[in-house]
């Protein structure tokens, strides 16, 4: 039985353009910073999960767990909450403001990727940051055995070598400012200016986990793997917009939606996609395998570089092979450039195809963008969800 404690708290998000944004988030400990997204909840199918929520905010907060049945709260079935006038204010039992607690428990029946978020006044509380992801391991999960290191269980074709979680979200700074100031905000005019992967805007998405200057955004979004490895990408749409995410380099195979394996009996319903539209409240589990241009077992990384037209040239005397015009500029390699990729790895973008969303308040590059880096060799401890 897994027991997790979450604290709903205030904090400040940092954006790469220098903005500091007041937000509400979940923290993993009383003295830990609120984070965006909230702490990753890791569970196992068939095993009871208990989440103890302590609410340090001045408004009631609750928890909703997508795709989970028979959720209990405070010892009985979770129930919608109405005020004395009969007006709904939360989809589930709440932790009262200023220190109230509520305990939620459920037994995940299905492995996969799920979301949790506040069910109290969700038009404000979810965009303010009270959301996170829940990953449920299959009952037979065993990372030591390749056949059992799967997303959906032995024999489901969902074996993976490394896995990454990308939680999408949006930030309308006006909502955050109005909430901090206690002033009215026209919710129907919700207009994001920042688009986030794991709570970060590019280029911060590419920084490692837990960098000191992003205390409220501890989760990086950089995808790292070796050629040919099976990379499990878990997309989770925690925001209110739909985001067409796509990786360069290779397509992905969707193996599960909303935490349900795409398989009926013996029929394999998984399918390949170039771009996956990540919709609100929904999750997409995919297998990505890089077998890209220029790579063969006989021509391992670093390979013979592709044609110069496929090279992106940066300002600082570096080059990246990306196949994309979005990184740096194209042209002759500047005088003085002597190396191709310091570590010899390949970089590919993974980004929202709505290009306005790969900006930070209109400034490219930014927003919902990260990189996939393919290394010739990579520590097996990279790409492990914790």
């Amino acid at each position, binding site marked *: 039985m897994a027991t997790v404690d979450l604290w709903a708290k205030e904090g400040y998000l940092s954006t790469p353009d220098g903005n500091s944004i007041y937000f509400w988030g979940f923290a993993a400990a009383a003295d830990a910073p609120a984070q965006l997204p909230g702490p990753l909840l890791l569970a196992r199918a068939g095993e009871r999960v208990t989440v103890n929520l302590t609410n340090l905010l001045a408004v009631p907060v609750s928890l909703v767990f997508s795709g989970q*049945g028979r959720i209990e709260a405070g010892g009985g079935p979770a129930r919608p909450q109405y005020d004395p006038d009969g007006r709904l204010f939360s989809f589930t039992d709440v932790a009262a403001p200023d220190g109230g607690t509520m305990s939620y428990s459920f037994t995940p029946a299905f492995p996969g990727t799920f979301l949790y978020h506040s069910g109290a006044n969700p038009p404000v509380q979810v965009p303010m940051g009270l959301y996170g992801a829940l990953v449920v391991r299959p009952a037979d999960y065993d990372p030591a055995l390749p056949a059992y290191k799967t997303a959906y269980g032995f024999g489901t074709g969902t074996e993976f070598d490394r896995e990454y979680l990308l939680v999408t979200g949006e930030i309308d700074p006006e909502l955050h400012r109005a909430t901090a100031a206690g002033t009215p905000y026209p*919710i*129907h005019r919700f207009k994001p200016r920042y688009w986030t992967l794991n709570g970060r805007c590019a280029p911060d998405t590419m920084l490692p986990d837990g960098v000191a200057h992003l205390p409220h955004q501890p989760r990086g979004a950089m995808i790292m793997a070796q050629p040919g490895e099976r990379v499990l990408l878990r997309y989770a749409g925690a925001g209110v917009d*739909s985001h067409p995410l796509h990786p360069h380099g290779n397509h992905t195979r969707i193996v599960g939606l*909303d935490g349900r394996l795409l398989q*009926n009996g013996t029929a394999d319903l998984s399918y390949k996609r170039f771009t996956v539209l990540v919709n609100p409240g929904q999750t997409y589990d995919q297998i990505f395998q890089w077998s890209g241009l220029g790579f063969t077992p006989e021509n391992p990384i670093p390979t013979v570089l592709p044609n110069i037209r496929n090279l992106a040239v940066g300002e600082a005397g570096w080059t990246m092979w990306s196949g994309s015009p979005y990184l740096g500029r194209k042209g002759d390699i500047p005088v003085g450039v002597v190396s191709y990729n310091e570590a010899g790895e390949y970089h590919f973008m993974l980004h929202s195809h709505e290009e306005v969303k790969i900006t930070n308040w209109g400034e490219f590059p930014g927003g919902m963008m990260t990189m996939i880096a393919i290394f010739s060799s990579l520590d097996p401890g990279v790409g492990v969800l914790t």
Partner: protein
Amino acid sequence: MKRGSSPVARRSWTGLGSRDRLFVLYPKKPGGTYPDFWKVRKMALVQANLWAKQGTILLAGRPLAFWGFSADAGGAPTLPGPVLEATVGDTVEIVLQNPGFAQPVSLIFPGQEAVSVLEAGGGFRRVAPQYRDGAIVSLADYLEPEAESSLTYRFRAVKPGIYLYESGTEPEIQVQMGLYGILIVRPPGHDLPGHPNYQTAYGAGTGSEYDRERILVLGEIDSRLHEAVAQGAAYDILDFAPDRWLINGRSYPDTLAPAGDPGLPSQPRGAGLRVKTGWRVLLRIVNAGFQHHTLVLGGLTGRVVAGDGFSLVSPALDASYHKSALTLGSGQSYDVIVVPEAPGEYFLHAGEYHHLVNDDLFPGGMMTKMEVVP
């Protein structure tokens, strides 16, 4: 909705004399079985009248002008328009009229092929886009404002499914104003106990058997558009900025009011559900708006058995899949079967949380409730 109880679609089982080429016959047998059913039932003519009118809806208690269809000359227009029901093989005839409605208007039936229109001189021809001075003015044959004549559209119901019908004239304004409704085409035998297609959305073997059916039409409203258009004032559709979000023409909590609530004369369709555990609840979700809409199934997970009126299940492949939320583009539909296991209150709501408001306050907007009892 209850089967066979559509209050608005007038079902005319004529034939047997009035139109010799169209007839319907259900021979009643002792024991209630219909073994040779599809040899017996040939075709029916389903007729409905739609009057385009201006009316008033209530959103969070405040009146708002809208345009809608009514099934009766004297009746109030409704949002969404009357539900038209037909059975595969039926010929569907819709008579459109707009006396007293100062707009040109037409009907299009997305998902139906080979729609015809009755010519003035008699006889049907294919419906066609209409041009004036080389510019398209309507996606289909239309009535002039306050026309004295009517326009009859006709098509054959070819495959089961749930579909929209809507105005094809100035659709960027008229559909937003409310000139849309639902067409359901049912498999033959859907209403005959003992028939393999009984209480299925797509027929036997499509995994679409249900105990309760609920249409959920999603949409949004820009109040300023409605006010401006109703007053004949200028409105630039590029300024479209909705402030109301609806299920079946109602915003929460009105979505929970019963069907035909006298306080909501132009919004007769409820969206609330009260079902028992273990029931197969068929949710027929249609997006009649311009925006994408996500319907979160309130913590429940359903099996998607059809998309855009196409069954996902065939003898060769069961391609149905599970979802706990679904996003629909404009004009799309999904049929989802939910089997609730645990009693409780489940809120079905927009995944776009900022659409869960009335006047910018939660709760409201695109939300309804499924109450599950033992």
